[in-house]
């Protein structure tokens, strides 16, 4: 390949350009969860799909995007109180820990983002995003509290019933899709607060993929 042919790098899987600002686990769940491993993707250096992808000028852009997600998540969870109390070096440690695959470094800081006051039963709102391959809309994100007004803990099922009822109650009764987080299907009875604490991505969001039930 000639040098002049190389412009900006991008990836594609089965015709879909892969968004770099989505976690790779989410992309895999959403697009390829039924495919055989290892995941084969195509690397492009030409014809950047301007309308599908954001440009990624540098590593700093990824860091900036990551930090903005973390901040957004904390705004939902703690009115940004936790993230704002952190120092610059703590923010840096979060990113460096992620970048260098140093879970201990990352978690030393992220732990604080996962705490909530003892008198509450959870976060203020759960930072989540629901992705569906079947719709044009990139994702669903709404305000959703982990504890209902009557004190009951909200579950994953409660969330889906409220924010995308089509998933839960299809016309003919039988569910035709899978609810995936991190490559697994948690039961719909799982409390959302627990999921948010334990199955959030490093950006502190719970990325939930709704994908069609594989046909055997």
């Amino acid at each position: 390949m000639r040098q002049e042919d190389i412009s900006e790098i991008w990836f594609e899987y089965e015709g879909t350009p892969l968004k770099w600002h989505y976690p790779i686990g989410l992309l895999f769940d959403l697009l390829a969860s039924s495919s055989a491993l290892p995941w084969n993707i195509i690397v492009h250096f030409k014809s950047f799909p301007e309308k599908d992808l954001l440009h990624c000028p540098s590593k700093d852009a990824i860091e900036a995007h990551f930090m903005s997600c973390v901040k957004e998540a904390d705004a939902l969870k703690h009115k940004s109180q936790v993230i704002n109390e952190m120092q610059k070096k703590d923010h840096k440690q979060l990113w460096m820990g992620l970048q260098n695959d140093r879970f201990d470094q990352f978690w030393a800081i992220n732990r604080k983002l996962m705490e909530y006051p003892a008198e509450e039963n959870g976060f203020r709102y759960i930072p989540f995003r629901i992705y569906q391959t079947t719709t044009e809309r990139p994702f669903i994100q709404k305000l959703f509290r982990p504890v209902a007004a009557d004190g009951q803990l909200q579950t994953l099922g409660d969330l889906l019933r409220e924010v995308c009822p089509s998933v839960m109650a299809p016309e003919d009764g039988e569910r035709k899709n899978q609810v995936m987080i991190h490559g697994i299907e948690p039961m719909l009875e799982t409390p959302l607060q627990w999921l948010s604490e334990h199955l959030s991505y490093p950006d502190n969001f719970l990325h939930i993929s709704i994908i069609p039930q594989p046909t055997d």
Partner: protein
Amino acid sequence: MPASVLWAVDLFGRVYTLSTAGQYWELCKDTQLEFKRVSAATQCCWGIACDNQVYLYMCASDVSIRCREEAYENQRWNPMGGFCEKLLPSDRWPWSDVSGLQHRPLDGVALPSPYWEWESDWYVDENFGGEPTEKGGWTYAIDFPATYTRDKRWNSCVRRRKWIRYRRYKSRDAWAKIPSKDDLKDLPDPFNDLSVGGWEITEEPVGRLSVWAVSLQGKVWYREDVSHSNPEGSSWSLVDTPGEAVQISCGPHDLLWVTLWEGQALVREGINRNNPKGSSWSIVEPPGSENGIMHVSAGVSVVWAVTKDRKVWFRRGVNSHNPCGTSWIEMVGEMTMVNVGLNDQVWGIGSEERAVYFRQGVTPSELSGKTWKAIVAGRESDRSHSGSSSSLLSAGCFFGDEVKGGSESAPSDTDAAAEVERPRPEWSAPEEPLDNSRDPKDSAALGPETGGTAECASENLCPDAGAREAAQASVGSARPLPASAAAELPWTSIDLKEPRKIPSHSAAGFAETTSHSSLGLLPLGLDEPYGADDHPLWAWVSGGGCAVEAGSMLKWFTVQSGLSPSVQTLSLSISPAQTATWRKQIFQQLTERTKRELENFRHYEQAVEQSVWVKTGTLQWWCDWKPHKWVDVRVALEQFTGHDGARDSILFVYYIVHEEKKYFHVFLNEVTVLVPVLNEAKHSFALYTPERTRQRWPVRLAATTEQDMNDWLALLSLSCCESRKIHGRPSPQAVWSVTCKGDIFVSEPSPDLEAQDHLLPCDQMFWRQMGGHLRVVEANSRGVVWGIGYDHTAWVYTGGYGGGCVQGLASSTSNIYTQSDVKSVCIYENQRWNPVTGYTSRGLPTDRYMWSDASGLQECTKASTKPPSLQWTWVSDWYVDFSVPGGTDQEGWQYASDFPASYHGYKTMKDFVRRRCWARKCKLVTNGPWLEVAPIALGDVSIIPESPENPEGDGRGHNIALWAVSDKGDVLCRLGVSELNPVGSSWLHIGTDQPFASVSIGACYQVWAVARDGSAFYRGSVSPSQPAGDCWYHIPSPPKQRLMQVSVGQTSVYALDENGNLWYRGGVTPSYPQGSSWEHVSNNVRRVSVGPLDQVWVIANKVQGTHGLSRGTVCRRTGVQPREPKGQGWDYGIGGGWDHISVRANATRASRNVSQEQKAHGPVSC
């Protein structure tokens, strides 16, 4: 925090309790008695029943209330018959009290009430001031009143001996009528209200309680002599009041408020330690003239009141110095009554719907709280769920069939059965699975994260939860009466005079919400609990025994079903979140996913090669040479990951001296311990290597914030552990130690730590920190570890690791719980006498500071003295400490001829100076792998070391002997302790004739103990089948020394005296386990721990290093061999502030030596 209970009475006079750990009101079993009023303290509850008699309910405790009766037998020598009972006419009675003035024949000593029983018959006390007496306990003197000696001399004309007999209070967990004396003149008219409090006026072990009552005629009565050892008190005495009282409230400390018929409040002034009844009254006017006060309730520094228009008022500015306060503040809400409980928390009963409300947000800084929150906990019959965790959690309300007007009758079958099942209040939750073959606590200890254990636990718990839900559902639908019907009930039903006979099962029913005639018509389900939406009507609430910490979680406010969030539960049992199906399913799927995505691709090369990770920062470093100060340094921690995945790290410290850049470095695999050194000013820590330990000269680093220090400590300790490949919970053989700051350290013993030759020098031991705060920690090699806090609370190790300042990955996520500890900071007020003004705070120019520390060298005023470090917060005001050694006068003063001198508690002609000790309590809240063993506070604990000759074959279930001494000096033996249940089940109280201080059990069940008088005792015949043994053998202390601590290994017995001398018990043989004499081993010892290999480790007072001196140093006795159990010398380990060590778990010795060892030991008394 252990569960404690809130007491309440409903409109029908039934008494309920609600545990802080539970979510259901539990009915007291006894429906024969209805109550009008109850007033609770932690250990007991007083009440006025509908027969207008006063009853006392003592909560069950493993330690019995014992009271010693004494009588003296006096004899005089005469030439004819030697010593005989015939005394001179001028002499005392032949049987008398200690003074000789009162006649006291043995058979004339009667039990004070039917609720007492004799423990044994009279016997002669053969112990005389710590020395055993000969010849039947006689002590001799020239004449009566004189000094008695144990030896009979030529001029001993009289002799006497002491007879003792113990009586025991037997009414536990039952209402016992307070006897009213027949003497009609003193008998008060029926009581109308009653309040207990004042327990903070005197410290333990006195445990005095102020019980105040108001009679129907409006008179105020005080119950005399109510104390721990005399729970019933002796008599009522009248306290004159300027008006007619209707209601009374006594706070935990010195507040006493009374409501007057006319609507004012009376406040008692002058209540103090020497005068618990107070001296005078002052009147407080109600907030408004039209509506007088109807009800008051006093706490430690608050008073709440309700006026006749049901409005709630908060009294501002109330404290010990100003018991009247300054002004009223109106609060939101309408109540019929309010009650202030422990920690000044407040409960009330709403005037409309008669629900119990809890005041939210009451903290020491905001005593008025924020909002009222209704307690919606349902009522549940204890019978229906006798196996469920919720009913077990609220302890203390299982009534016996005691109230029978004094006459005894045999309990019925059902009651007897219930009695057997009755859970012990101090440890309820983990007992639940005992009837199951598997104990979920064990699985919790193994880590509930693993799918397999979660499965087994859920099998235990789920059916029960399901059954309860089903039961609730059925009740909810079948409930015959709407709540509104109940609300229309006549209020007079509280004053029902005749005790109704209700079938015992109706306790569980709700029939009485209608009229009594319909009682038989309702279908009463024996096993149906109350529906969650059933709305009880309350008449009275008392929080005097209910400890709610500010900001703690309570389950009272939501009706919870089945699953609870992943909130930490305060019990060892697995929380529902950990057992839920969804959780298991997630773990199972993650395991499968990992297999699917990783397993088959192991041969793929790592995409990113990583080797070095650097963390940098700025710290301060103590420059130990000139200029001897903290200097700012840059630090960098470099971590390398080798090809094998092993990590190693180097800490670089860059500093500038004389404008010259320099650095030094430390290999973290050489670091032996990292010790946090917190004080008022600095967040610092010390770092030791073997070399630095020998020098007694650690690297000291400080951070600007606590958070910063914790981050560095966590990172450094993680790096140390990684380089030594230490992870997870300490092994059962671990050596535990505690510093004077209460920090807990644990070291993994290598096999050559106790080797015969080439033994590992103990300065090379690596110590890592465990979360928590303890004063004492004791372990045995089966993984049972107990600790005692500075506040004497007992703690059991949960199997977790980390916590405290050890956060992040070095900490386990489960089995870490909140732990708190309380200690006192003491300062001294010093005064000098001068002929003009007497004692004043004006000293001589050469004198010490008039406010100082104990040594007098440091000035310490009340205002300037701060808690020991920023982790501690004050939880009390300054108070005079009367329990200082040497005794005090009534105001707490100790006298001496001059400063620094020996102080005594009374003034003589020669005393020119005096001092008194002021103490202030401070509290620390941290977390760690510890759970409280409530409710008995301990002074010492010892767990049987496993003999090395008795290897693993014993099975995990067998009982492990554990002995303890309570803070009051009672000797206790813990039953049911095993590997699977390290907390055990209950205490067995071992009677002693005097308070004890220390206890130790050896590998062959040799129990040795030290009494507070400094003498030693050996307990005979202790064995697995007879865990309590049979009797004590008194063993005199070494001459002129008072023993303080004892430790027994496999065969060796060591004791420590007050002057730091270590003694070995010589002549101990299997047939004569008491031994023959004390042999001096060493001085300079502060604490001793003898292990199962008879290894001897101590905390030495002072050890000199090449660069410094360390106080409180871990040392091992070298050269200890079977033929030479006393050893030869010392090997010096980590030091500088160590207070306690336990090597009693370490039975590992390099294997080649074990067989040798066994042969050499020969016959051992096992």
